[in-house]
């Protein structure tokens, strides 16, 4: 099962050299492995272990969330919009699922 990812740039079309905030939301339950279901059994941990952000094929950030990151987590970065290009997000979780999403950054 693939994990749904949303990417947003703020501002959507930055000027060259401007600071742009990249917001990534992964739709994932992020089970910490400490919760119990109605019958008292522990729900096994299932959270995102690695999220790699690349820009034009070059890795720019790697996030390794632990069980202490919220469900449907938001990851926000800031980068300098030097040139237009393609931002790509890859993620993996403990259950072996993965997700991938690309977004194009356009300059004003």
């Amino acid at each position, binding site marked *: 099962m693939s994990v749904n990812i949303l990417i947003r740039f703020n501002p959507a079309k930055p000027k060259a050299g401007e*600071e742009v905030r*990249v917001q990534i939301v992964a739709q994932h339950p992020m089970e*910490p492995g*400490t*919760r119990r279901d109605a019958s008292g059994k522990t729900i096994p941990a299932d959270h995102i272990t690695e999220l790699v*952000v690349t*820009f034009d094929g*070059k*890795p*720019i*950030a*790697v*996030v*390794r*969330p*632990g*069980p*202490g*990151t*919220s*469900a449907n*987590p*938001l*990851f*926000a*970065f*800031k*980068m*300098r919009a030097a040139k237009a290009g393609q931002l790509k997000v890859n993620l993996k979780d403990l259950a072996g699922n993965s997700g991938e999403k690309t977004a194009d950054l356009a300059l004003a």
Partner: protein
Amino acid sequence: MDRRSFVKASAGAVAGALLANQLTSALAQGGLEGEDLANLEKGLQATLRRGFKDLTPSRDVKLVAPTIAESGANVPIEIEALLPAEQVKAIYCFCDKNANPLLFTVEIMGVLPYFATRVRVAETAPVRAVVETKDGRFLLASQSVRVTVGGCG
């Protein structure tokens, strides 16, 4: 009591109260609410191979977290290093009382030294932002988050 001694006495009382106020806020700086260094130390050693004493509290690390969180399951955290981007290697975030004190790590490669996310805080405890610089320093900022409903149960 005549008027003069009353004025003197009340001025003294006000000054005393101010001093006491300053004292308590100074104490709050030293010992954050819900501090649990033993548990934090475990997480620090496992992740950084460093202890709490190796971290330098610094004004160059800006940590934005709510002082009171209604739900511990969703606490917005913002960390910014006020350093040139090329000096920052990674950002770590810990919480003293979580079963697993490490909340997340971020390797900074091409982005600016800024990261924001939402984390779980098990119970009232300080959140620690640690910024690792390229020259091997670990800079620390802490803030206590008061939680009414825990986020890990």
